[in-house]
């Protein structure tokens, strides 16, 4: 009875996961979808604690430990999720993702220890063909190769997800710098190969082997995760996080396989597939292949890009900027990571309001990979109450730029770099960009002339129709607003 209720609850949970993902495709239904999946998860967790029975028909024990873990995790999770600033969302997602991977890796470790203790024999209830529902006879069988492969997959993928996500978190929050050395890709491949080969070796010689080798696989995977993410430039970080997200899904699915648990399997594979598709969509938005992202260290070529030796940029005063914007018919704002860092989304909304009160049409052009993650800018601007229909996607924005009087670029750089269109040597060559040059006037707000996250020069800043407005985005916007008010 209990077990059949558990099965039904798992089924419901799996359906809520699928519905939740589906409802994420529209802003109006997304929140409900998220809640539905959350409730499904909650039901599955409690049903497991009280209704799960293992092969021998025993209930789960150690309830104090389990509830203790759930309590600590819930408190920590809620605090972290409530405290995090909207701008720091990508690194938060990366960290949570790493924790999921670590959890999957730990499961493999515990199961392996359990197996090692039993001499790699698995006890199973003897299957009785006759109509006997319970049998106390037990049969000890050597562990199957399939089980070992799953254990190792969970360990390797979980460990890579954990260390890789932690590095991605460190890089996005500015705690870890890009690091690459000659021949790193070769070493990476060697590490991964060593981890897989060692796993295969242990699987084949499981009877007479020191179990400590298992931990060597874990160490190799952890190091691989670190070296895998370290050389990848910040501009590619969204792709990496999405990729690691799909890995964590697959590592979760491994424990689903291990316990013949269909809700873990469905959830894990669903995320694995969704993460893969999302990764590919992001690569497409940057017009690069996945292989290129992983192998070509993006930030590693500071010399790339046209030499700007003799070229000069020009600055615009706050007053002039305020005047041209006030008397424009149409202004398009291009937000980038600089806006997120400066927490300037509310100031941005203020500027929009005051310009509209002066009869100026204001819109926002959102590049698919603006910020550190697709949709990052949309979330930020939504936080500041910017209306959804004012946000233009790239293709539509590019059609509108020729009829735009002023483009205000707030802390965006690579997504407006014309080198992507014509400079074959540039690392971002081929990435679709926002054609801000077709507007009548471009004002760029940046903190300094330093190159953007991809580490390359931007010739847009030196063009005759471009003027620079230096300073922190929030301060510059507030100053602009007070200037416009005084006109």
């Amino acid at each position, binding site marked *: 009875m209990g077990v059949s209720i558990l099965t039904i609850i798992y089924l419901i949970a799996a359906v809520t*996961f699928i519905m939740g993902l589906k409802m994420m495709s529209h802003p109006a239904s997304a929140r409900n979808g998220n809640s539905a999946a959350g409730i499904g998860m909650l039901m599955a967790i409690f049903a497991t604690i009280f209704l799960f029975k293992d092969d021998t028909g025993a209930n789960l024990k150690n309830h104090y430990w389990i509830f203790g873990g759930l309590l600590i*995790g819930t408190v*920590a999770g809620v605090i972290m999720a409530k405290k995090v600033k909207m701008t720091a969302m990508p690194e938060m997602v990366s960290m949570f*993702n790493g924790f999921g991977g670590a959890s999957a890796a730990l499961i493999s470790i515990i199961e392996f220890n359990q197996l090692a203790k039993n001499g790699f024999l698995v006890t199973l209830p003897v299957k009785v063909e006759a109509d006997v529902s319970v049998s106390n006879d037990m049969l000890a069988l050597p562990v199957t190769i*399939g089980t070992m492969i799953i254990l190792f997959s969970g360990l390797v993928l979980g460990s890579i997800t954990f260390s890789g996500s932690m590095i991605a978190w460190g890089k996005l929050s500015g705690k870890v710098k890009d690091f690459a050395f000659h021949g790193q890709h070769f070493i990476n491949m060697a590490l991964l190969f060593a981890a897989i080969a060692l796993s295969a070796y242990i699987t084949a010689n499981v009877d007479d082997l020191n179990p400590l080798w298992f931990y060597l696989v874990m160490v190799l995977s952890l190091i691989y995760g670190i070296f895998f993410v370290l050389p990848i430039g910040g501009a590619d970080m969204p792709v990496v996080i999405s990729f690691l997200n799909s890995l964590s899904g697959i590592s979760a699915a491994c424990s689903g396989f291990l316990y013949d648990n269909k809700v873990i399997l469905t959830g894990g594979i669903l995320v694995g597939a*969704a993460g893969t598709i999302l990764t590919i969509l992001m690569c497409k938005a940057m017009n690069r292949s996945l292989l290129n992202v992983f192998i070509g260290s993006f930030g590693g070529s500071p010399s790339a890009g046209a030499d700007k030796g003799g070229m000069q940029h020009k600055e615009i005063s706050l007053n002039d900027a305020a005047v041209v914007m006030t008397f424009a018919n149409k202004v398009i704002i291009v937000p980038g990571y600089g806006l997120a860092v400066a927490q300037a989304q509310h100031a941005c909304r203020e500027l929009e309001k005051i310009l509209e009160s002066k009869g100026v049409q204001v819109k926002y052009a959102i590049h698919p990979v603006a910020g550190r993650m697709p949709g990052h800018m949309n979330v930020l601007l939504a936080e500041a109450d910017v209306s959804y229909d004012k946000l233009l996607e790239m293709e539509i924005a590019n059609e509108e730029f020729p009829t735009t009087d002023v483009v205000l670029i707030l802390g965006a750089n690579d997504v407006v770099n014309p080198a992507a269109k014509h400079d074959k040597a540039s690392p971002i060559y081929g990435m679709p960009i926002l054609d801000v040059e077709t507007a009548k006037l471009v004002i760029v707000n940046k903190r300094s002339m330093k190159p953007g996250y991809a580490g390359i020069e931007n010739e847009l800043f030196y063009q005759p129709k471009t003027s620079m407005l230096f300073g922190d985005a929030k301060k510059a916007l507030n100053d602009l607003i007070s200037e416009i008010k005084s006109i």
Partner: protein
Amino acid sequence: MESILNWLHANEQMIYIIILVIFLGFIVISRVPTVLHTPLMSHANAISGVVIIGAIIVMGRADSNNYAALILGLFAVILGTINVVGGFVVTDRMMEMFKKKK
């Protein structure tokens, strides 16, 4: 080779589920607009925390004097719970903002 084939045969149901869910995941995701990619990633991340159920099972089966397993299991449960709870709460916070302007 034969043992692998046998293993595939024994897990036929699970393999069917995997293949069908892969297609399902592709189809469900490819309709999500770019603007929702960040909440989507966070939501998917929360779902991948379903591994918490595996952590609970492993913990609930450990002998109550096997402290190595219990402590590792506790970490697995805590980290998995942070993943699940944090993921859903963060996604909810993001979606709350999308809704406000309506």
